């Protein structure tokens, strides 16, 4: 096995016998198995990296069952001092699993699809909503991300309506490629970096001043992974919620008040990885005002919407709805009428489990703009 870093050893040793974050782990409370909790995964990885055991297929599956949502870090009272980082440990282990040719078939299939088609679902790029884009020079480049590009074009349409209404010149990337984020999360760093290089090149060629991103995974990649991999982007990078807020603050974008009770499903990759909690709230409050209500779990204690729930027990994308259901229940508990989501994945996972209205933040703004 690959030599493990000291930070990962510290995490292994701290987490292997500590069950104190387990109630926060969404994967354990889908399967109810101890091996799907942070402690269980740390025990299994300890056996491999410090115990001299080989990976077996069920341990590998447990490593791929993690949603990388970071809840374990948020709920760890020793994290600040110890710096324990289960998601980083899992990502390290996945890279190691991949490097030894041990990735499960379902993961390999997603990898192949990303490499060949730039999406996780083996879809032809002609089916994407950027297939017919004609690129142009503009200050704003809007990057959709896979979910919006392939399964939720209504989110892109809503954002484009706002840009049109504001008379903002923008461009998209034709056949928008993958950012590489999904590949990296699955353990394929080399392929991820190649895709990242391609994406960075396309962005630079677009020559924009501001990159506005819908997908939290892509946002996280551009903000954190690309600089770490030496890919420097000169443009400002904003999530759509941050961009909408700037339009609202400048007085350019005005939203009608809504009388509906609105709540917000935080995003793990925007929130926990990048600290973006307030911008989407301010956008929602610009319309909902006092009708905005928090669910029981929010900010750093958010419930995962399954943004990185690629595989679970070898079944790709099957468990996202179970995460969405947990959010729906909490929204219904507070009698919300609208759930605002921050990614296509979250929107789909939540909408599949509730009769409440579920919309992306750009749809919320587009529907209410004056």
């Amino acid at each position, binding site marked *: 096995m690959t030599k493990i870093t000291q930070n990962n050893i510290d995490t292994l040793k701290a987490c292997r016998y500590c069950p104190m974050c387990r109630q926060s782990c969404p994967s354990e409370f889908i399967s109810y198995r101890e091996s799907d909790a942070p402690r269980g995964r740390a025990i299994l990885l300890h056996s491999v990296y410090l*115990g001299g055991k080989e990976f077996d297929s069920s341990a590998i599956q447990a490593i791929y069952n993690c949603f990388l949502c970071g809840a374990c870090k948020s709920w760890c009272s*020793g994290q600040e001092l110890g710096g324990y980082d289960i998601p980083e440990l899992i990502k390290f282990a996945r890279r190691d699993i991949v490097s030894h040719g041990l990735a499960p078939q379902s993961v390999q299939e997603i990898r192949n699809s990303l490499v060949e088609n730039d999406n996780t679902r083996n879809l032809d790029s002609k089916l994407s909503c950027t297939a017919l884009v004609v690129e142009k020079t503009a200050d704003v480049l809007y990057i959709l991300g896979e979910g919006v590009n392939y399964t939720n074009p209504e989110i892109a349409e809503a954002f484009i309506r706002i840009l049109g209404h504001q008379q903002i010149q923008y461009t998209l990337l034709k056949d928008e490629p993958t950012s590489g984020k999904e590949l990296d999360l699955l353990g394929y760093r080399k392929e991820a970096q190649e895709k990242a290089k391609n994406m960075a090149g396309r962005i630079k060629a677009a020559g924009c001043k501001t990159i506005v991103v819908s997908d939290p995974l892509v946002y996280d990649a551009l903000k954190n992974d690309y600089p770490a991999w030496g890919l420097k982007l000169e443009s400002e990078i904003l999530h759509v919620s941050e961009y909408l807020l700037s339009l609202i603050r400048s007085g350019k974008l005005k939203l009608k008040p809504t009388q509906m009770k609105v709540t917000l499903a935080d995003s793990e990759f925007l929130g926990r990885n990048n600290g973006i909690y307030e911008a989407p709230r301010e956008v929602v409050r610009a319309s909902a005002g006092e009708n905005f209500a928090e669910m029981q779990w929010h900010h750093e204690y958010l419930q995962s919407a399954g943004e990185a729930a690629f595989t679970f027990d070898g079944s790709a994308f099957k468990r996202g709805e179970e995460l969405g259901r947990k959010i729906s229940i909490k929204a219904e508990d507070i009698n919300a009428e609208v759930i605002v989501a921050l990614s296509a994945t979250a929107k789909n996972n939540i909408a599949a489990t509730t009769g409440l209205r579920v919309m992306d933040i750009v749809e919320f703004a587009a529907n209410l703009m004056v």
Partner: protein
Amino acid sequence: MFDMVLFELQDIAGKEHVSTRASDKEVYSIDYFWISEMWHDRQAGRDITRPMADFIVHPANAEEVSKVLKVANNYKIPVTTWGGGSGSQGGALPVFGGIILDTKRMDKIYKIDEKSMTVEVGTGIIHQTLEWELEQKGLSTMHDPASARCATVGGFIAHRGTGVLSTKYGKIEDMIVNMEVVLPTGEIINTLPVPKTACGPDLNQIFIGSEGTLGVVTKVTLTIHRLPESRKFRAFIFKDLSTGLRVGQRLISENLQPSVIRLYSENETKEVIKKVLGIEKTGAYLVYGFDGKQEMVDLQMKYAKAIADQEEGEDLGTELGAEWWKNRYKFFFPPYMFHLPQCFGTLDTVATFSDIENVYNAMKEVVETRYPMARFIGHFSHWFPWGCMLYARFIIETPPEDPHEAIYLHNSIWNDALRAAMKAGGVLNEHHGIGLKLSRLTPELYGNSFQIIKNLKKSLDPNSIMNPGKLGFGV
């Protein structure tokens, strides 16, 4: 035979809820017991095997539990019930293989009755999850242990758990109204609807603390309380442990009804309080707390302070008291908690006020004189009208490298320290249970009355399938 039993279990719980995966067997072979952790920690380069289950089953309800137990009886397969796996006594370890019965799917909240102030839940619910749901309605069980985040309600019942508010609200056994229990032979029974009757022995108390040896508690109705309007704390340093114990005893006997009293020995004050709370003081740190209506709490705080002042405590104020409350779980997280390669154990016991200091001194002397490589610290955290519990701990920084030698040392300390405690008026344990760790000492604790418990076991579990090797029952 294995494959035949597998199919029977799958028919009961569903294929996805029966695991024979290597990863599950490995993870369910380690709970919070030091020996199981050490055994795993030192596997590199050694021919070490840990006892592992053959099947891990996740039943959804009492009916499924019942069917699993009937299969287990048919084939005489050991069954070990597993809640959160956070027990420190090895009680959930499948030492003779067989079936691990993970209860966590039985996690429903069936009914919150705000008139009777009770909640009915499946025992597989993680306690913190229950508390969060109650909190939404301004309610709480007031059972607040550090393990709330990781342990199940059933786990607390299995080993008679307690929480930091026990001095006012009691231990888990004081909070139980009624229970649904699956007997070892598969019958599903319910205890009486209320616990305070004159209808013979209280069946609840047979199963509470039985650690999965007499059946599986699948549903429980617990008492609940309204969240208090006010909760206040105050901390003091007393010149020594004896003074601190006297203050605690007075807070109880003068009927001030504190919800929290926690007194740390001089050396734990120096080591742990400094590490977690950053308070560097010489003496014994004591924090007390009250909750309820604001005016009543203020009055209780006033009278409590008067006692502390009379005993010449150095007042650290309410803020440093509240700081303890805020950080009360932090003690149990890494890097604050003791951890391998250290060898450590919590020698918790309980005794009357007349005996408790002698118990502390007897255990301290035994550990420090016979085992100079060990440190001994302790605090007193659950107080009753007649006495209090001692949460003593030993810590060895560099135990023997050889795992068998390390276990021998570990067990020797437990034997000697607990025999000293029992001789001075203490018992084997107060709220962590007996499990595998203390099983051998249980007949010694009970003397000739142990036969009663053994007869009960034989009657309820004729094939001795339930958690063999634990609670002094052997196999």
